[in-house]
């Protein structure tokens, strides 16, 4: 048994080091996962589980949030985020294709500029955009939010897509063009099918970024019937009273699509690449 003769290799601990590693891992797992489970369970209990009642399972929290108009927030979020994702992905595919296929003078400058969009302090844009939006009647409007989220997700999407597209050999395009295909046909009929998983992963992540965005929604949407999900979630926090049951049910409804969409794509979104896209 190696446990009696501890290895000197630090990555291969034996004896008490082994036990320590396992204990630490279990503690880490607990801290990582338990809070999320706690809320999931709480969403099915009266008052989120803080009330001491005999009742242990109820769906009343969920019923209550939908009676309070949560469905409307979901609808608003779906409309805004789906539209923004579609526009953003189409524009990003167009730009990324050019970046991956052609040499031109401003290429490096433009691409660096787009990369900078990933670290841009968005909070600084709030005032000037609010002034401009107010003048153009884009406050409290779907169009305003769709445009904002399109611009918000393009830098990340272009960067991701260029990364995928450079892996598709240029000879594929050239062969098709010799056969008489137009560039548009090349993108639509050749690149899209090959890169579909990458496109879907990018679009999904863009959707998730918009789905959970809070600041712009807070500043640009003041009318209750236009508010998005993140704003709706926080309306259950009263000034001196928090309806924890409703808050938790709303949290689960907000997060569920995120988990369902994120898990299948996370293999495509390596943490290294995404490091630039987290706001």
């Amino acid at each position: 048994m190696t446990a009696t003769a501890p290895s000197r290799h630090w990555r291969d601990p034996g004896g008490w080091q082994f036990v320590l590693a396992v204990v630490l891992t279990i503690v880490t797992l607990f801290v990582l996962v338990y809070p999320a489970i706690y809320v999931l369970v709480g969403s099915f209990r009266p008052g989120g589980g803080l009330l001491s009642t005999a009742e242990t399972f109820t769906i009343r929290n969920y019923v209550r949030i939908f009676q309070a108009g949560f469905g409307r927030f979901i609808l608003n979020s779906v409309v805004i985020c789906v539209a923004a994702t579609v526009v953003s992905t189409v524009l990003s595919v167009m730009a990324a294709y050019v970046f991956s296929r052609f040499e031109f003078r401003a290429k490096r400058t433009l691409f660096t500029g787009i990369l900078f969009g990933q670290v841009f302090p968005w909070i600084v844009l709030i005032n000037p955009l609010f002034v401009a939006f107010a003048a153009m009647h884009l406050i409290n409007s779907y169009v305003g939010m769709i445009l904002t989220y399109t611009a918000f997700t393009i830098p990340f999407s272009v960067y991701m897509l260029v990364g995928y597209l450079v892996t598709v050999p240029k000879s594929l395009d050239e062969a098709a063009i010799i056969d008489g295909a137009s560039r548009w046909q090349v993108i639509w009929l050749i690149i899209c099918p090959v890169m579909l998983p990458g496109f879907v992963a990018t679009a999904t992540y863009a959707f998730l970024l918009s789905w959970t965005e809070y600041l712009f929604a807070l500043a640009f949407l003041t009318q209750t019937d236009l508010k998005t999900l993140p704003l709706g979630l926080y309306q259950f926090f009263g000034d001196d009273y928090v309806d924890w049951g409703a808050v938790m049910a709303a949290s689960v409804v907000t997060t569920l699509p995120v988990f369902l969409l994120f898990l299948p794509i996370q293999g495509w979104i390596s943490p290294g690449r995404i490091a630039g896209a987290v706001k």
Partner: protein
Amino acid sequence: MRDRLFITTMLLPAVVLLVLFYGYPIFDNLRISFTDLSLLGMKKGGNWVGLANYRELLHRGDFSHILFNTLIWLTATSVLLRLLIGLGIAVLLNTRALKTLRLASVARFALLVPWATPPIVAVVIWRFLLERNGFVNDALMGLNIISQPIAFLADMRTVWPSIVTIMLWNTVPLIALSLLSNLQTVPEEYYEAAELDGATNWQMFRFVTLPFLMPAILVLGLMSVFWSFNNFVYVWLATGAGPGTFTNVLATEVYLKAFVDFRLGYSSAIGMVMAVVMGAFGILYLRLVAHRQLEETL
């Protein structure tokens, strides 16, 4: 020539949108910061006040407090702890003992949970856990560590550590997973050679692992500075900059001044301060990250 037309058409929509949403506003923000524009009087516009907003900002007693909160708590503390804990978890999950127990793959999956949790929900979760009669107080009282429940997000002694905890729970997994994937590329021979030379565990970590991870740590640290310094949601949703304005940071101050006090001009001046600080980090970003991303991608 046909190519040129094609390139322009394909790039134009994205570039125009980016210029409208990033380029134009930053200049307009500068202009607004020289005016006394009010949210309530946008139709009539603001009057030119020159540097008055910037002078006010320098002479206000609370500005240094806000700056301290932003730089020390929101940025420095969270970034350093994020890197340290992330590195710790990555090293832990890379131990062979865990691999043989198949705990490592379970733990990797566990890391996905906080990572996939949206920040807006992460704050909800922790506000609930940190309630007066919530899980954390119950646990601490059960272990006899405290005798009275603590109002974690309302008590000045605990509010910043609590906010930082929320940020860490939500963002450490990304760092840990990144470093873990880097760790798995360290050539085994390096350790074998070090072992032959009689290196201790600590020496192997210090002279083999750490230098190998350093480039990744630097990049993640820098990106982390951007996410933290500019972040609005953690502080705003956890405390609303309170108690009072105790946890106010630059990002929440921009919002408060513009949308609560209606002073767009003054708020924009604070925004310019943020833009200048981030501009300095932007140069580092250009050198360390953008340059590399450009080489890797194009």
